[in-house]
């Protein structure tokens, strides 16, 4: 199944060749756009394939599944791949619309491709240490992008991001070592087998806790999210959009994978920690958002709050909750990154995104307004927009499990989300235009808006055609939770003993 390597290989080759190109030109741009389109196609094809036949396995180097590294693409991975390629495509197009090729930073697009490499590798790999390498590719690239276009004022904000992620990497490496010590292997499937054998061993929970911290830090769960709102606002629009869409979601994906597939479903302590941490994340994140007074700052804090919803679902740890989490991820990535692009456009038009310096967009740029309104309301979970359904499923699960406190937290978070979105709406779109009138609409605004509108259309499709996406998310969740089948698909040996919560329903 060599296809599974393409989502990693294509962007890497694209980035490298773009580097040899060195000067940004229209030709280079078209090449990158074309390749990104190709990546999207591959991802969708993989999705169709894994939907039909379950996990696709590639033993890299032909070393079988025990000796070497294994790439595994199940439906969830495929979904994430499709989302990352889609977001990358949107961001590249937006970046092209924002500046002429001559003004573009020559390293921006290649580095974005390498970021895609890291993200996609995290999605396809079936090996713990390879996941570490993927994280490093992702992190180092994000460091590079973070400081690439930072000016002499804001470069220092990169430190908050680095300082925490460096600690996280060290902890992750330590965790890999511990995992090898405990399981004698690094392959997810084999680890799952060993984990079942080790049921009841305190070290299993200890290791789970270590990974909880590592991936919680990546996903931005309370109180590990501090790096995010401090650093994201210094990014240029398109890069910020990709960061906001994908990076934290890699953490969520890994949480789903590790606590759905690798570890046996018998870690109530971990799930409780996840659920309550998620509750706090939702509330603190959205409170932070309301407190901000710049578009990108508000949106950055919102990422955190939204992460709370997904992680809460993981904490509930039922098949339906996993479905909810996946549905929520699908919605969130599209909506969030397009909102960041709106923020970028606001910056582009006014030269700043300070709420007190903006206004009048509802008349000047109605399409931008419509897109923002739809995406913002979707984020706030207004039916029948895409954001509602994931939230609805989580509420259903919460009511069913009678988790009233967490339910209340979710409701408070939703309403505060609405409050902060209205803050942007009232200031940027409804308020009268700032003194000195509207800045003459900068070139490119129209094309930038069209990208955003396109993404909005997609999220509308998700919201109205939710039946399809629900079906996909449901199957993806089942594939993640169906440990016996996963183990068998990877190792080729049936594992009837492997625990799974699917049987409970």
């Amino acid at each position, binding site marked *: 199944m060599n296809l599974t390597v393409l989502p990693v290989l294509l962007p890497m080759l694209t980035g490298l060749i773009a580097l040899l190109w060195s000067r940004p030109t229209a030709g280079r741009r078209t090449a990158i756009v074309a390749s990104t389109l190709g990546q999207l196609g591959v991802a969708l094809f993989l999705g169709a394939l894994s939907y039909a036949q379950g996990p696709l396995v590639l033993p890299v180097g032909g070393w079988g599944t025990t000796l070497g590294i294994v790439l595994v693409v199940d439906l969830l991975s495929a979904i994430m791949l499709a989302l990352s390629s889609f977001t990358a495509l949107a961001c590249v197009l937006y970046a092209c619309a924002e500046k002429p090729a001559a003004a573009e930073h020559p390293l921006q697009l290649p580095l974005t491709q390498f970021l895609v490499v890291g993200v996609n590798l995290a999605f396809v790999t079936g090996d713990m*240490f390879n996941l570490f*390498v993927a994280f*490093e590719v992702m992190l*180092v690239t994000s*460091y*590079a992008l973070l*400081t690439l276009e930072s000016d*002499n*004022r*804001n*470069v*220092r*904000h*990169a*430190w908050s991001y*680095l*300082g925490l992620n*460096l*600690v996280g*990497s*060290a902890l992750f*490496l*330590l965790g*890999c*070592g*511990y995992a*090898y*010590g405990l399981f004698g292997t690094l392959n997810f499937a084999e680890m799952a087998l060993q984990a079942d054998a080790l049921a009841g061993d305190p070290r299993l929970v200890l290791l789970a806790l270590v990974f909880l911290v590592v991936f919680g830090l990546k996903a931005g769960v309370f109180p590990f999210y501090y790096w995010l709102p401090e650093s994201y*606002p*210094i990014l240029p629009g398109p890069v910020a959009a990709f960061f906001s869409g994908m990076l934290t979601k890699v953490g969520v994906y890994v949480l789903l994978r590790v606590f759905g597939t690798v570890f046996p479903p018998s870690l109530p302590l971990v799930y409780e920690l996840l659920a309550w941490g998620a509750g706090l994340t939702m509330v603190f994140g959205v409170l932070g958002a309301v407190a901000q007074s*710049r578009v990108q*700052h508000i949106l950055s804090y919102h990422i955190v709050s939204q992460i709370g919803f997904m992680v809460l679902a993981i904490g509930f740890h039922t098949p339906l909750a996993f479905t909810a989490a996946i549905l929520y991820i699908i919605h969130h990535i599209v909506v969030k990154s397009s909102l960041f692009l709106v923020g970028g456009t606001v910056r582009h038009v006014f030269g700043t995104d300070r709420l007190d310096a903006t206004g009048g967009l509802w008349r000047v740029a109605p399409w931008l307004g419509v897109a923002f309104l739809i995406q913002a309301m979707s984020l706030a979970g207004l039916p029948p927009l895409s954001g509602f359904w994931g939230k609805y499923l989580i509420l259903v699960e919460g009511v069913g499990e009678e988790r009233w406190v967490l339910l209340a937290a979710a409701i408070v978070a939703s309403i505060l989300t609405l409050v902060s979105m209205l803050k942007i709406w009232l200031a940027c779109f409804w308020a009268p235009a700032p003194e000195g009138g509207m800045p003459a609409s900068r070139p490119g605004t129209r094309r930038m808006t069209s990208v955003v509108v396109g993404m909005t259309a997609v999220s509308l499709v998700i919201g109205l055609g939710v039946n399809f996406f629900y079906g996909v998310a449901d199957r993806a969740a089942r594939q993640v939770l169906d440990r016996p089948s996963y183990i068998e698909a990877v190792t080729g040996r049936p594992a009837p003993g492997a625990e799974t919560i699917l049987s409970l329903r």
Partner: protein
Amino acid sequence: MSVQLDMAIVVGLMTGAAVYLILQKNFVRILFGFILLSNAVNLALLAVAGDPSGKTAPVLGDAVGRPMVDPLPQALILTAIVIGFGVTAYLVFLFYRMFVDHDTADLEELTAEDEKGGKP
């Protein structure tokens, strides 16, 4: 089946010292802290390979058949060292840049500008 106490002690000492340095304000000390931390973690990975006494290096050529140490952690550490080198280099550059831009090598003074509302 044995647990190397000395390794644990060294790793513990180095990690503690590394954390102590990382939590300081001065760029150079923080840098030292992270270099130290990556070394400590590499040692930890090495320890997981188990007690080497009585075993030979994992180079088969002449020594086929004799008990050998586990090569996998060594490979992992090699990868980790390389990545660590890249990150260290980046850190040096970042600190250099932050110093040039803000004319201070002290995180406290650096972040103090936020209180004055110097946000991006």
